């Protein structure tokens, strides 16, 4: 087990370096003038200055390997340039937008982890019963419904017609409280801060604004999780050892919980890494539609306004995070399935 983890950890820097090289190669598609923006951390630097001098200073006409080394050092120092669409340095924009996205991600992940596997395996246990059919229809519709369509239809129905869930992160009143000095900001994650401040009005308001975007954001992941768990559980339930367990007179509940679900979980763990990628994709769309000022909306605006430093920074951030997520998945995988670490 330990050697397996060490081996995976040794590969990690190579893949992270690969991500950096890939983003750098994408940058090479640009002219030196365009790339200049990725290096400047302040727009004031660009005023009244000869661009040729700057290109010279940042070495944008140097040989590629030297440019790469320079840029790599910049990344290590956390300097990713100036984001025009956020009006602040890229690293500062990350700090500001992260909590908003983290809040959406946490609220999406929580029910998914708690309920997804349970519902999926229940669907397999009740194979071809009404519950199974409902789950299958939900899964395939959720998988086919694009996030932006789900978001707009959700707003159309639940805000336009019913008036239940407004867009935005907070209502006017709650947002005034959050900005005031009474409300201490510990994490930037509003629901968490509200609990820490013991302010239930803000908590309820934030939750009301979260329901629809969280549903839209996690719809794809729900669909995938239900499908994978169901298929995997169906396969496991037909294994001989499950029949043996039943034949020796074990309670059905024990057979399913202790014998079948354990093994059925193995393929489910592998999709956890993909779910992180889905989350990043979904954040861009969901935050844009529901007007949450988080990482995703920032990236979408950056793409519309050709804000390259922001885009490259975001891409790099996504890549590195997913590499780490996959590492954790692989380790969990080896932990659950002994065949992996022996193989």
């Amino acid at each position, binding site marked *: 087990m330990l050697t397996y983890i060490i081996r995976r950890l040794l*590969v990690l820097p*190579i*893949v992270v370096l*690969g*991500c950096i*090289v*890939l983003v750098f190669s*994408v940058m090479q*598609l*640009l002219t030196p003038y365009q790339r200049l923006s990725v290096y400047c951390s302040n727009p004031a630097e660009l005023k009244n200055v000869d661009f040729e001098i700057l290109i010279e200073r940042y070495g944008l006409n140097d040989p590629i390997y030297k440019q790469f080394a320079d840029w790599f050092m910049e990344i290590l120092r956390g300097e990713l340039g100036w984001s025009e669409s956020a009006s602040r340095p890229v690293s500062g924009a990350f700090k500001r937008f992260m909590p908003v996205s983290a809040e959406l991600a946490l609220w999406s992940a929580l029910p998914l982890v708690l309920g997804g596997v349970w519902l999926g395996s229940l669907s397999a246990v009740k*194979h071809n019963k009404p519950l199974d059919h409902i789950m299958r229809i939900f899964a*395939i*519709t959720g*998988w*086919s*419904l*694009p*996030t*932006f*369509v789900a978001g*707009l*239809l959700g*707003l*159309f129905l639940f*805000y*336009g*017609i019913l008036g239940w869930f407004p867009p935005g992160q907070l209502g006017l009143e709650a947002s005034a409280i959050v900005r005031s000095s009474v409300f201490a900001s510990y994490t930037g994650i509003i629901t968490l801060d509200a609990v820490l401040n013991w302010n239930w009005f803000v908590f309820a308001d934030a939750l009301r604004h979260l329901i629809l975007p969280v549903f839209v954001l996690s719809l794809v992941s729900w669909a995938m999780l239900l499908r994978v768990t169901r*298929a995997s559980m*169906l*396969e496991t339930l*037909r294994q001989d050892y499950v029949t043996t367990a039943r034949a020796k007179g074990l309670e059905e509940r024990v057979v399913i919980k202790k014998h079948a679900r354990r093994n059925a979980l193995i393929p489910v763990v592998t999709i956890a890494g993909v779910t992180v*990628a*889905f989350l*990043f*994709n979904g954040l*861009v*769309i969901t935050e*844009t*539609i529901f007007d949450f000022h988080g990482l995703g909306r920032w*990236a*979408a605006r950056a*793409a*519309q306004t*050709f804000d*390259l430093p922001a*885009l*490259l920074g*975001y*891409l790099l951030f*996504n*890549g*590195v995070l*997913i*590499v780490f997520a*996959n590492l954790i998945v692989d380790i969990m995988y080896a932990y659950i399935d002994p065949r992996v670490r022996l193989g």
Partner: protein
Amino acid sequence: MTTFIKLIKNPLGLIGLTLLIFFIVVGILAPVLAPPAWQNEPYRIPRDGYSSTPKPPSPEHPFGTAEGQYDIYYGLIWGTRTAWTVSLVVVVLSAFIGITIGTIAAFYGGILDEILMRITDIFYAFPFLVGAMVLTTILGRGLGNVMIALIALGWMGYARLIRADILQIREVEYVQAARAIGASSLRLMLRHMLPNAIWPVVVQGTMSMGSIVITAAALSFLGVGAPLGYADWGQLISYARNWILGLHGNPLAYWYVIIYPSIAITLFCLSWNLVGDALRDILDPRLRGTQ
């Protein structure tokens, strides 16, 4: 052929197939169903004025007009062709790249396998939509660049899938026999291994036809995909963004701007997913007998 018959016998598969045929017919008959206003630019949606307020369905505009007076019916009909073009080109080319890389990696193994698979890992690290968004922004707006971006970020799944299958098949007796007779590497790969390893890739391909269309439409929705006024479902939905709330006292005032394009894109993806699901059930021997 038996696969096809089984597909028709599967109720959900049949629904999916029927819907696909419908979309094929609409795509082929586009010039008849919606005669283009400009003969050499059929993908340009005709506009009826420049007012931003959408107009409800009328005899001239059966599905109404979107923001900027783009004809929704015309956009949907020609958008079907766009959807087919994008999904077919992207899926076929990325599957081709993935199959090539995966087969070579599994067949030769060793250090080459290690290098190719680590490259695959690196590409895998980027979220599909975000990566495509960045790449399209840099390459420039337009459908061609959208397709390039989607292919560049879409081949990895196929590579991993085919590699796993080829690794298994490589050791099977009939392949060993062919090798012993002296078949060349190319012949071994193309004649003996690929035909037996290709089915999971086919299933994967059908399943991703829908998600490719979704991602391409999402790029248009975000404003970095198809050019303005181009017949594309994602673009039509992005025109709907400012109008989903309707008027005070009449929340349904602009229902047509969002409902019609949503139905089109969701049905297209649904039909591919239904067919893909049914195909997987038919072709995956482990699932046999669960039906």
